[in-house]
């Protein structure tokens, strides 16, 4: 290993720089580097350019007309007005909506599982809302980390959605062989390790799953040490504590009482009509011992109308043998069996396998009546029959027995039936299909109504008792052991590994048997230590990146050897220390950055500076850049006054379905619900959304700490031709006509102020007046939405 913890910059303690200069500390560091290259700052940006920049940057929306006017006309010094505006923007809920997306990108958060089923995670959205709220409330970053890793210990459940941000295959999509099941578990935990180590530590620990890290001193043992911290983690839902939970909990008792009363009524009805209790899912029919050669079951109906099915059918003799077993040479048969990806054959009835996860059921090919039959190898005296329900539940059947003897001389005799059975709660047949011997049709209907009421109340009680749910990590009290795996192969376990952080970062003193939640709490303690060399550096670098387009380290989730060295190492350290000193406050950090001269420079290129530093890494100007997909869409809606500012809750849909195996089709038209900010769109993994997906929207497959900013003809086609953008252009034209005055020149001026926060140049105005005159104002608005000035932060 080339890199030792002692030498690599990002593992050194953060270095404090004492600044004698009276100016802004950021400008001090930037100026130093500029001087070295004989460069200088650019002049300040124009007032309105600066306003548009900071609005888009902090909130993802352009300034409103009122703000533009107030800002332009305020007689006070720009610095004062500007600082005041920054405070307003940071206080706006729009800030959290904008910056939460940056975090969701890093951890590839989405609301579907990925892979070919891409099934929906319906209750994942509370995590997104938690992030937005945390940012809007300026939750200190150390607390932000604590809640996401160990929110369960402080009553914050939604934050644990962080750990389940990545894709994970559904259980049903995993092979039934041992290797496939172990691999799937390894993959699940791998996603967690990647999420934690890349987003918080800026280290690619995931690279050490199969072998020691090629570039950084991260060993395979470090990987499995991290895995052990999360060994108790389970994917799925957990109770979302909070107000709603308390309200639901308060309803549990009264609902249970109501249900008990209803159940009492049902029991009274059962007794009144002389009905036997309802069928069990593993049901036993007892009868007088009888000599049997064959047994058959005639199935008339299932409770849910699905084809008849059973996992197992057992026939027990008086000497306690299951004589129906195939291993006892009994022969099963059935009216039919379904063809599916797995066996639905009637042989499954008598294979002796009753663990539903490891065996297959018999399923009839079609709905409606069906029969099964077992011919015994030799006649036996039998006394009971046990059947195990399949995917559907039987509701109406008869069981018959055939004694041994000449076929013409023996007859089937009835052993058991359901004609005096109380229907089950899950029986949803219409009353007309239910025949109960002792009841009139009217009585049957009443009984089924009562059953339906009990069913609904039972469901309601279960819902209230479980409480509101969030898709977030849960933890077993006793995590299973973690093993070092040879070459990452789950079938090749080596020594047991204790929960640990990568050795290059120190020790957290846990044992292999350490309990939950200590493992995670120790990790949090480590991460949020004020001397941790990575946590604050990684975070301030991310924030810097979103203000300037590129981080001080341009590889934001990798501060290891394969990552880039910082362009301004002393500035990075100064910011990180300042960030901690200011109580890990993100808003203070934003304020510090955007109030610098560096941030407020003009973005116009200067050819001499371009020659020295074409990428503008030294920040001799503000680097202009294309906006992200979300900001483009939200801005279009905003300038039209169509943006729906509803916050939180389940997302709106870009597709006509939310998850599943078949094609996703794009939703063509949106109304108010679909005009919410794009962060509130239901995020489908691996599916680019129409129009805006082409603007480098991450697909949430791999982590995306930094978006690419490509420029493609599909973007041009989408913005120019899509019905969405053209309809929005129409809305803008309507607004401009309604508010901008009744003549074209005034309307063009007004449109410019809305879209660009400035007045048009003469040449621009002339061209647009011509376009408006010939082809209408809608075309002007369409062109403005397509222009680079609109889709760029300049």
């Amino acid at each position, binding site marked *: 290993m080339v890199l030792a913890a002692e030498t690599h910059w990002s593992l050194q303690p953060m270095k404090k720089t004492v600044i004698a200069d009276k100016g802004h500390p950021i400008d001090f560091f930037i100026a130093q580097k500029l001087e070295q290259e004989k460069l200088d700052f650019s002049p300040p940006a124009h007032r309105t350019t600066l306003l548009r920049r900071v609005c888009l940057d902090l909130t993802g929306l352009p300034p409103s007309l009122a703000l533009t006017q107030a800002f332009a006309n305020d007689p006070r010094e720009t610095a004062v007005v500007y600082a005041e505006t920054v405070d307003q923007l940071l206080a706006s809920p729009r800030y959290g909506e904008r910056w939460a997306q940056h975090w969701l990108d890093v951890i590839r958060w989405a609301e579907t599982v990925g892979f070919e089923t891409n099934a929906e995670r319906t209750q994942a959205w509370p995590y997104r809302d938690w992030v937005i709220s945390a940012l809007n409330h300026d939750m200190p970053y150390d607390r932000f980390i604590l809640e996401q890793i160990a929110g369960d210990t402080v009553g914050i459940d939604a934050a644990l959605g962080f750990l389940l941000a990545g894709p994970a295959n559904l259980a049903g999509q995993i092979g039934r062989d041992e290797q496939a099941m172990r691999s799937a578990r390894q993959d699940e935990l791998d996603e967690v390790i990647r999420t934690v180590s890349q987003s918080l530590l800026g280290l690619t620990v995931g690279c050490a799953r199969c072998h020691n890290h090629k570039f950084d001193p991260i060993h395979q043992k470090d990987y499995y040490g991290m895995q052990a911290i999360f060994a108790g983690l389970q994917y799925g839902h957990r109770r979302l504590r909070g107000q709603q939970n308390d309200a639901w909990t308060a309803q549990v008792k009264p609902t249970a009482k109501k249900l008990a009363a209803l159940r009492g009524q049902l029991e009274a009805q059962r007794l009144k009509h002389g009905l036997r209790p309802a069928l069990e899912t593993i049901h036993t029919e007892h009868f007088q011992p009888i000599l049997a050669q064959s047994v058959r079951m005639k199935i008339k109906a299932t409770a849910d109308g699905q084809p008849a099915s059973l996992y197992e059918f057992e026939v027990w003799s008086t000497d306690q043998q299951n004589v129906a077993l195939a291993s006892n040479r009994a022969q099963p048969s059935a009216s039919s069996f379904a*063809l599916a990806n797995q066996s639905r054959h009637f*042989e499954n009835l008598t294979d002796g396998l009753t663990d539903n996860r490891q065996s297959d059921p018999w399923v009839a090919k079609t709905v409606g009546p069906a029969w099964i039959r077992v011919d015994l190898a030799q006649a036996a005296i039998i006394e009971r029959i046990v059947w195990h329900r399949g995917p559907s539940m039987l509701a109406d059947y008869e069981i018959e027995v055939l004694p041994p003897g000449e076929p013409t001389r023996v007859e089937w005799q009835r052993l058991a039936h359901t004609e005096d059975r109380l229907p089950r709660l899950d029986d949803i047949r219409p009353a007309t299909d239910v025949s109960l011997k002792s009841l009139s049709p009217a009585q049957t209907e009443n009984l089924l109504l009562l059953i339906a009421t009990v069913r609904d109340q039972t469901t309601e009680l279960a819902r209230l008792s479980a409480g509101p749910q969030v898709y977030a990590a849960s933890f077993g009290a006793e995590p299973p052991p973690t093993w070092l795996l040879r070459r990452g192969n789950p079938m090749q376990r080596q020594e047991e590994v204790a929960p640990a952080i990568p050795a290059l970062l120190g020790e957290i003193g846990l044992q292999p048997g350490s309990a939950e939640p200590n493992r995670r709490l120790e990790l949090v303690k480590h991460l949020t230590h004020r001397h941790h060399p990575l946590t604050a550096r990684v975070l301030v670098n991310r924030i810097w990146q979103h203000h300037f387009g590129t981080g001080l380290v341009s590889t934001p989730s990798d501060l290891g050897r394969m990552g880039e060295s910082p362009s301004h190492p002393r500035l990075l350290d100064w910011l990180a220390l300042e960030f901690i000193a200011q109580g890990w406050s993100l808003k203070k950090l934003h304020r510090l950055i955007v109030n610098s001269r560096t941030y407020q420079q003009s973005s116009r290129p200067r*050819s001499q500076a371009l020659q020295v530093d*074409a990428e503008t890494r030294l920040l001799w100007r503000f680097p202009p850049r294309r906006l992200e997909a979300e900001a483009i869409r939200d801005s279009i809606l905003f300038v039209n006054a169509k943006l729906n500012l509803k916050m939180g809750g389940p997302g709106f849909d870009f597709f006509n379905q939310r998850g599943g195996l*078949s094609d996703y089709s794009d939703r063509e038209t949106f109304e108010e619900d679909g005009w919410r900010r794009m962060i509130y769109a239901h995020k489908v993994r691996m599916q680019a959304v129409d129009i805006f997906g082409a603007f480098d929207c991450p697909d949430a497959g791999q982590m995306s700490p930094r978006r690419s*900013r490509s420029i493609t003809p599909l973007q041009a*086609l989408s913005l120019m031709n899509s019905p969405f953008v053209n309809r929005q252009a129409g809305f803008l034209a309507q607004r401009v006509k309604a508010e901008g005055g009744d003549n074209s020149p005034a309307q063009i001026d007004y449109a410019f102020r809305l879209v660009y926060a400035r007045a048009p140049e003469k040449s621009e105005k002339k061209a647009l007046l011509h376009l408006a005159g010939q082809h209408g104002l809608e075309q002007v608005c369409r062109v403005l939405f397509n222009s*680079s000035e609109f889709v760029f932060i300049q």
Partner: protein
Amino acid sequence: MSLSACLLDRRQFLAGTWQGLSAIALGAMLADEAGATSPKIDPSRPYAPRQPHFSPPAQQVIEVFCSGALSHVDTFDYKPELIRYHGQPLPGQERLISFQGPNGNLTQPLWEFRPRGQCQKMVSDLLPHIGTMADDICFLHSLTNKSNTHGPAENVMNTGFAFDGFPSKGAWINYALGSLGQNLPAFVAIEDPRGMPQSGPNNWAHGFLPAAFQGTPFSSTKPIRHLQPPPDTTHSQNRAAGRTLALLERENQQRFPGDQELAARLASYQLAARMQLSVPEVANLKDEPPHIRRLYGADSSNRAKAAFAENCILARRLVEGGVRFVQIFNGAYASGGRLNWDGHSQLKSQYEVHAQILDQPVAGLLRDLKQRGLLDSTLVVFATEFGRMPMFQVGTYGRDHNPYGFTCWLAGGGVKAGYSYGATDEFGFKAQENVLTPHDFHATILHLLGLDHEALTFYHNGIQRRLTDVHGRVIQEILA
């Protein structure tokens, strides 16, 4: 024409700096540091043709991908022992549990095999048309996959990784080589007329490469989205809008002299305008003569077959138009084997349907490329995510997933013709001789395009990523 003539005639690309597409620039810089030779992208012309690492036999690729896992033992991998041991358990694996559960006894191929062509290659009666092209094909019988689940396995075959989010091989090739033409996207993905393949857009995604390199999905039945202006706009409106936009863009450029990103935006509108003309032209199959349509089976009364045949004709036309990588999908999403090759339950009847659709169009494509002299410079790849078991599953009339050994093939573009490489064991259960990984397969495809798979890299999250991860060997033995 819809954007504007004005956009097209005054192409002005400003002098190059690395301002635009900074992610690309960064990737390239880091690659240089690592001694790799990543392509240099001109952000205003991301699809400009780029030089390969060395002079290649193949310029372009058409891949036919059979989604759902095509059974090798019923098509190209002839196993006399499987016929002989029909009805008996697989020796040593009597109780094998695979993806869907327990397996039953060995089951002989459901179609007869017979020798085809001069090379006398045994190909089954399921795919007789492809069989007639055996003398042009290089069969690879020893592919393996590390996943036995469709989605991850399709990811592996098309991106090199089982996980979601890695760039597809078409995107890698687009990134490396750009396009040969001026007016079409460099990478086109043609979906099956019956629907999206199982791994969906993963198969043509750009992953962490810039979005410019993703596959553009369209087909004979599904046009490029938003290619044409809204129906309620007029020709002259669209023209005027395009012209005015160009004017605003130039004004803005004057305020930002030397800004490459702005130049690239204008160029992207110009390419979009050219695509509006060229894509409908290339997708208009009406001018294909009847004998060509018949060759592919586009005249079939079987609608799915005719549509798939048209997709194959479209692929040829795209290659003629300079598209670098065309991927044609045969088989749609998971559907119990009804719409793709996932024959678990009733393999015989389902495969009869699918083979009707696949066979003649693919054979027609090979023949047509050959007669036009395109097969020398075009590599045809035929692939699937894994094979199927030599046994039937217990209680079904089909075969379970088999990632241990399966067949893919190559044709044209610098590979040996009428040749077979690698082998599974006597029953077709596991690859045994010259075992191949998808990485080897990918390394070979890149090699045939003049690309060193170890040198084609892109920095992402701490690693110089490659299509072939840290693996892959060029299969030298099959190079012509």
